[in-house]
């Protein structure tokens, strides 16, 4: 029978990896939708109504799937990580409860109006609804990341033993919840969400633009796709450079506060200075390929690069090696490669942004077929980069679930049996694969269907009630 600890870890990893897609989509779309709604209400023209209605469809389905997969996440703290919940509940439960009350309630109620209520409410209330939904999704992330940043960098607590179990007591809420880590995480996450959605919008729009202009295949509503591509490019030009620049500061903060994670990101085993930044590395002895302890590396590295990045400019800075920690190292290969892939994509997105921006400047944005193909190929890479970033964050702090306080293996429910864990794990793999497939299917259908026709919309604008036969938003 399977080890319940291992099964719980796999199951939680699977739950978060699938769930994060949907909040990224809704958080990333939120600022766009607020802008589209504002322009639409202020009479910006039918294209803004098309934009609002089209992207609201994607938002709505993402929100629904995000809700059902998110509840699972909250419950799994109790079902699978009961020991963690008992130990950390006093600090960890509060932010989760406030997230539900302050943020989730706000989004879920006003979403009803935002998706179903355009014809029922005034312009003003509709605008307020779009803002409420957007603010709600971003507030959700505030509380979730407050909880997560405390697990990365626990502060403001005291340890006590109650009924033979270690329990964390809150002593300084300001230190615990206004954690320095939170700011780095929040900016990195929210900017990543907008960047991922910008890449997705650009990729989808590039497909239609390519089909129309390069292929010469007459496409309906091409103005809508032009506009989508340009708006996405503007967002990408802002977010892509910011992500890499801020990510650099974040990595430096990790170097200072979580040296074990940083050592895993750079695969540094023995404390060294003048550590190279490997762009690529394999063990010279190929039988050690799966062994992250392989020491003889063949690689392409920038001399002193890792030290330089860690310290913010000093190529001789010392990086503490994994061998110097009392606990076993996290799975180094996973952290090392995830970090590289994420950073590599970050630079690629900057290149894409400037490439697109340059073509726009030269007036060839709609003619550069290679750019369109690059954008199409990159449409989902933002989401992949987010996933890998979270892998670095969460795998990188193993074996700890609360850094330096509680190990992940000690956080699992003590009464959980191997067969129970196996049943739900198998169920999860099946259900979550189905959810992903269905989500992809629905989103693809929405994209294939395209926006509502501009001609049909103008008749809506001229009267309060929609004429018979005009379908609703969804």
């Amino acid at each position: 029978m399977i080890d319940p600890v291992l099964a719980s870890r796999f199951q939680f990893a699977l739950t978060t990896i699938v769930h994060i897609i949907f909040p990224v989509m809704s958080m990333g779309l939120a600022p766009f939708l607020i802008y589209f709604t504002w322009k639409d209400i202020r009479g910006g023209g039918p294209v803004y109504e098309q934009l609002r209605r089209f992207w609201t469809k994607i938002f709505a389905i993402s929100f629904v799937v995000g809700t059902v997969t998110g509840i699972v996440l909250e419950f799994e703290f109790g079902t699978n990580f009961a020991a963690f919940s008992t130990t950390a509940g006093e600090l960890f439960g509060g932010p989760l409860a406030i997230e539900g009350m302050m943020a989730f309630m706000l989004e879920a109620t006003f979403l009803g109006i935002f998706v179903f209520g355009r014809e029922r409410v005034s312009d003003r209330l509709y605008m307020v609804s779009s803002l409420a939904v957007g603010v709600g999704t971003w507030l959700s992330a505030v509380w979730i990341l407050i909880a997560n940043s405390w697990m990365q960098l626990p502060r403001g607590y005291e340890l006590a033993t109650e009924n033979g179990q270690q329990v964390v007591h809150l002593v300084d809420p300001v230190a615990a919840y206004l954690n320095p880590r939170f700011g780095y995480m929040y900016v990195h996450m929210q900017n990543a969400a907008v960047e991922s959605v910008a890449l997705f919008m650009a990729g989808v729009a590039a497909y239609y633009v390519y089909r129309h202009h390069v292929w010469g295949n007459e496409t309906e509503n091409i103005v809508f796709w032009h506009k989508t591509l340009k708006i996405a490019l503007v967002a990408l030009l802002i977010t892509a450079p910011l992500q890499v620049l801020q990510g650099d500061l974040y990595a430096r903060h990790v170097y200072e506060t979580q040296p074990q994670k940083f050592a895993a990101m750079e695969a540094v085993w023995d404390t060294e200075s003048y550590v190279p930044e490997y762009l690529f590395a394999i063990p010279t002895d190929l039988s050690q390929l799966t062994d992250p302890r392989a020491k003889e590396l063949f690689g392409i590295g920038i001399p002193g690069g890792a030290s330089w990045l860690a310290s913010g400019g000093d190529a001789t800075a010392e990086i503490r090696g994994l061998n110097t920690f009392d606990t076993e190292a996290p799975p180094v290969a996973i952290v090392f490669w995830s970090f590289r892939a994420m950073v590599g994509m970050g630079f690629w997105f900057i290149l894409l942004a400037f490439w697109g921006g340059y073509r726009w400047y030269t007036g060839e944005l709609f003619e550069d077929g290679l750019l369109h193909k690059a954008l199409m190929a990159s449409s989902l890479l933002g989401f992949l980069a987010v996933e890998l970033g979270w892998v670095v964050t969460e795998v990188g702090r193993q074996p700890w679930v609360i850094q330096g306080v509680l190990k992940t293996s000690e956080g699992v429910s003590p009464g959980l049996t191997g067969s129970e864990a196996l049943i739900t794990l198998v169920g999860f793999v099946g259900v979550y694969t189905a959810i992903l497939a269905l989500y992809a299917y629905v989103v693809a259908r929405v994209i294939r269907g395209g926006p509502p026709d501009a001609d049909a919309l103008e008749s809506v604008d001229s009267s309060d009630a929609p004429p018979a036969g005009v379908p609703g938003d969804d």
Partner: protein
Amino acid sequence: MTSATVEALASGPLFGLPLPELWFALVFGLLGTFLFLDGFDFGAGAIFATLADDEAREAVLSAIGPFWDGNEVWLVVFGGALFAAFPSVYAGLFSRHYLLMFGILGALILRGLAPEMYEQRHDERWQRWWGRSFVAGSVLAPFLLGAFAGNWLVGSPRSLTLVGVVVGVAVTALTVVSGAAFLRLKTRDALPETVTQIGLGAVVAYLLAVVATLGVLAVRLPTGIDALLSVPVIALVAASVALGVGYGVALRRGSNVAALAAAAGLTYGLTAVVAVLMYPSIDPAAGLTVRAAIVSTLPLNLMSVGAALLLPLIATYFAVLYSAFSGPVTADEAY
């Protein structure tokens, strides 16, 4: 926040209030709110099974469309409040009923996805299967939630118990009671007269299930029959019978708002019975009392301030949502 404020917040309960008991009441109040609000969505899902007509089915989906997501958040808030105020209970209870919890989650996933999927395509096979999924999720979720509440009350370590089954049946019947009133209110003539009949049948079934529950509890409850014969329990049961009769009369007369209010009363009444029977314990299986399981004073005070500020705000959101969609849904408001 200055250190003086923190010290004051850590020194004793805010305004000397009995915060552990208030949070115990709040946790059950949140559970009751979820069981009523999402309850009528579940009930609508069960009634959906009895409707063969395409237009009637669309009317059911349109009726719950703008609401169900917000209603479901009450379950998240219930879980969050239990976690924040009584972390060891949250941990113990959820891990003890491991498979039951995942059953509930699975049912909620099915119920949430099915209406979205149902509307994606209009071929018969597709809609038949997603319609079935919608019904299955809508019936299973309240049944398993009821089973969870029953097991919680009697402190059973097992997921399948007799108490669990009868409470599960009671809660499922109760959601149909709410669902019938809600659909009558929201759809007027789009649905056949049978919806009223279903509501009347469900309220009778619910009251019978309550009698069965009390019978089983008399044998199984650790505190025995004395707890059942206490004044609050007798009063709540009597009130439930009165509300049940009132519901039937109101639904027949077409006073749909009154019928829905009676259904709300029934739901909060049932939750209150469970809470009253459980108190002063909050996790009978672990032998934990409310006072023993509550978090320490500082986080409790902070949470209390948060809840006191946010719950009235949430009430406003729901008021705005429900008033924006007041009155029956119209034909052009497709899901």
